[in-house]
């Protein structure tokens, strides 16, 4: 009898303890919230590394910066036109050397302190003094930045330049928080918890590897967002983030590949909204053209004729169709076609198309002949064969798909390549060590052409330059466009620079990829593409963040996340306990039976 009672009563005890727990839990969730929190959940495939704007690495961090910090100027939602954000007014002097910015009088940090001209000056000086490369571009030619009073900033430059008027670069951090630290402390500053922000949201919770959560401010000068909180959830694979969207655990995600995007398109469009957004990036094939004794580049890649022949040999349209499944545009110059004012598209008679015969003819003519008949050309006059290394990053899935195509087309013109993919950091090692021939990589490009054009100037070798291309005439034009305030004149120079790059080909622009976004169309409305009509829907888009609103009575991501109801867990647990009790019971009884 003793053996009979014990296990059963334990089972009963466990079950009753569990039901007390459920009762409590039920009571908790039943207690009505004063008002429902409106949560927008974004699925991401990369973790947040830092909330410190000086440590931002990719768009995950820069989106956080966008949400937390407003700039003095911004790019308008419809057409990227420059417009004031934290400013009430701004003007340029006749000579273009003095800029006066007046801050609004109703702007505050999320801790209630006013945003002042001193904050701006402190941030600018910190960036310039410490040469924070991700931000210092916005302060070139600065002679002095001064706070004239609480709200007025006077920015003088050494030469006529547009730089102070370029939105997107300027950052303002609260001096009363950041100004109390040493530069080293600032570099290691987590900026969490107690993040003090100027933008509509501030970071309140962050679990590395899991999620981070931002809450809307209720005192935001542009009006309170209709989203109360934005949660970024980390998913470890592209596959699972797509599953999470279909299931409804998240409200939005950037879709990393065309294959997954097409699968989402097959879902009911009333549930899952999808958008192909215009390219603000390009993929390129770079040549190591550096003039440096430590370079290990194959001599043939230094020859512009060879590079042009390579360009004739590549079928960009096929790459767009086969690698990008049609979600891209064949590439020409580093300024993407979306910025049509600046982009130069080569006219038909100047365009380098797909013509292997022409490529072979050029190489023959230049003396690169296959003298030993092994299918691979040698340097003029015999000698080293044209056997190149093609490097790319393991994270670059499109590049990895494209590389075999490139290899095949180069083989058709008698150039052998060996493909090697490696981690980003290893790739940078090779890259900055000038230890490579070809690299396939990509760039994201902003609306103003200055930055991407600067990456081809000789001064950027070892910094932003992919190829260490060096052309004094190009450098001269670059400086000239920087001080040309008239848009049409500047456009003419920018076009000339693109023509130069298209002719010298330090890198071949392969394609402009589209981006994919998908979201729960059954729950949310009010997204504002930036710019109209095919710009980004939500990712990094402050206008959609402020304007997105829930469709009334739609289910939320939190509900989809709940999983199995408690009852099933309790039932399951009771079943297991019961089974164990049963087995033990039977054994005991049998023991008793035998013992008897």
């Amino acid at each position, binding site marked *: 009898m003793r053996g009979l009672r014990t296990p059963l009563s334990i089972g009963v005890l466990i079950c009753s303890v*569990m039901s007390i*727990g*459920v009762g*409590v*839990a039920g009571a*908790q*969730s039943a207690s009505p919230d004063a008002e429902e929190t409106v*949560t927008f*959940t974004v699925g991401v495939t990369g*973790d947040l*590394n*830092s909330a*410190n704007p000086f*440590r931002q*690495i990719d768009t995950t961090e820069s989106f956080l910066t966008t949400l937390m910090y407003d700039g003095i100027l911004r790019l308008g939602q419809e057409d990227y036109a420059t417009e004031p954000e934290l400013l009430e007014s701004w003007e340029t002097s006749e000579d273009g050397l003095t800029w006066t910015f007046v801050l609004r009088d109703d702007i505050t940090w999320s801790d209630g302190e006013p945003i002042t001209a001193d904050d701006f000056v402190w941030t600018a000086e910190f960036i310039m003094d410490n040469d924070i*490369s991700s931000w210092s571009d916005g302060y070139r030619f600065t002679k002095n930045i001064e706070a004239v009073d609480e709200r007025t900033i006077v920015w003088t430059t050494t030469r006529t330049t547009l730089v102070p008027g370029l939105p997107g670069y300027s950052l303002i951090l609260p001096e009363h928080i950041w100004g109390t630290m040493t530069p080293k402390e600032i*570099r*290691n*500053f*987590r900026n969490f918890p107690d993040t003090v922000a100027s933008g509509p949201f501030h970071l309140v*919770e962050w*679990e*590395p*590897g*899991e*999620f981070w*959560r931002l809450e809307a401010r209720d005192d935001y000068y542009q009006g309170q967002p209709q989203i109360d909180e934005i*949660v970024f*959830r*980390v*998913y*470890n*694979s592209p*596959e*699972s*983030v797509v*599953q*999470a969207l*279909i*299931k409804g*655990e998240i409200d939005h995600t950037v879709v990393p590949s065309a294959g997954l995007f097409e699968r989402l398109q097959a879902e009911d469009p009333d549930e899952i909204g999808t958008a192909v957004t215009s390219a603000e990036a390009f993929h390129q094939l770079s040549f190591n053209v550096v003039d440096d004794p430590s370079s290990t580049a194959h001599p043939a890649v230094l020859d512009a004729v060879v590079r042009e022949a390579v360009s004739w040999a590549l079928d960009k349209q096929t790459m767009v169709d086969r690698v990008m499944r049609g979600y891209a545009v064949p590439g020409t110059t580093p300024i993407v076609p979306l910025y049509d004012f600046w982009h130069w598209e080569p006219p038909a008679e100047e365009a380098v198309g797909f013509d292997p015969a022409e490529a072979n003819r050029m190489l023959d003519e230049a003396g690169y002949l296959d003298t030993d008949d092994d299918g691979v050309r040698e340097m003029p006059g015999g000698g080293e064969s044209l056997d190149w290394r093609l490097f790319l990053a393991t994270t670059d899935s499109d590049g990895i798909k494209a590389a075999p195509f490139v290899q095949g087309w180069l083989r058709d013109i008698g150039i052998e390549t060996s493909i090697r993919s490696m*981690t*980003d*950091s*290893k790739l*940078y*090692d090779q890259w*900055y060590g000038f230890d490579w021939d070809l690299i396939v990589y990509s760039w994201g490009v902003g609306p103003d052409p200055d930055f991407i054009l600067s990456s081809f100037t000789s001064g950027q070798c*070892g*910094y*932003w330059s992919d190829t260490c291309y060096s052309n004094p005439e190009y450098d001269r034009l670059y400086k000239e466009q920087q001080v040309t305030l008239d848009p049409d004149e500047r456009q003419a120079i920018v076009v000339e620079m693109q023509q130069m790059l298209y002719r010298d080909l330090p890198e071949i622009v392969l394609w402009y990829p589209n981006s994919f976004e998908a979201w729960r169309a059954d729950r949310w409305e009010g997204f504002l593409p930036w710019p109209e009509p095919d710009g980004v829907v939500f990712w990094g888009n402050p206008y959609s963040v402020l304007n997105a609103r829930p469709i009334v009575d739609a289910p939320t991501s*939190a509900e989809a*996340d*709940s*999983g*199995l109801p*408690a009852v099933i*867990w309790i039932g399951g647990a009771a079943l297991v306990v019961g089974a164990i009790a049963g087995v033990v019971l039977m054994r005991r009884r*049998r023991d008793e039976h*035998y013992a008897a």
Partner: protein
Amino acid sequence: MGEWRYVGRKLLQAGVTLLFIISVNFFLFRIMPSDPVRLLTRQRGVQLSPEAQAALTHDLGLDRSLPSQFVKYLADTLRLDFGDSFIYPGQSVVSVFARFLWPTVLLVGTATVLMIVIGLYLGIRGGWKRGRPLDVGSMGFSLLFYSMPDFWLAMILLIVFSTALGWFPSGGFESPSSDLSGFSRVLDIANHMFLPVLTLTLGYIGEYFLLMRSSLLDVLGEDYITTVRAKGVREDRVLWRHAVRNALLPTISVIALSFGLVLGGAITIELVFSYPGLGLLLLQAVDSQDFLLMQALFLFASVAVLASNLVADLVYSWIDPRVREA
């Protein structure tokens, strides 16, 4: 007396191995081809001035002689000070490790217990009634899952039970809302853990099943079993008292090793289910060459294996006194 000598010898061996691991860990990361300073600063478009590089070299202690670096490393290791993580700037390696430790221990630990208990039980039952439906069924079932790639099984379970049926969340450690507490939080964590645990358990039952089954079959063929049976001891007792006890011995070291490997995480499972565990952290660390973090992860993982082996040795000697004499 001999007992304590044995324990002492084992502890000493473990201590020496630990010292060896710590030293290897030190030299391993110093013979890596990449320059750590370069690794910490590399980024597209960023190059440090020579002065800044020198300052960083000094900060990392890399300008000192190798022996003095080693002494400093030993002291730091003893204090569990592994420096700051590169992928999470401003956070110490130990705090990052602690952050990802708990989910992994919970996930892989639970699954390991389950796969061992179920696998051993089925192995015992199968071996005892060889060729019967339970044996054949267990064999087919466990081998089927054992031979499946675990990420594939994970994907199928995810699509069926999460996306299609909606019973379980598609990933993560818990729901990203801060208002859960007490029992509802436990439930939430269990909900998130169910599919990954199921995948791991199903996938590895076979290992323990086969091991236990063959070990039991060996023992059942021994003469003493025949003797016990001839004495008229009832079958149940023959199995549990006489056969299983001895058949369990070879499984102990395998079991101990499995627990030691918990700290390695389950990379593929953690990937598919977006589970924030150590396997994933290691993957991230390797991917971005966060060598301070890698160093700590390697060290902790090896220490865990070492510790569980020590436990196995001690348990073994306790169960089977013959070991002590050997």
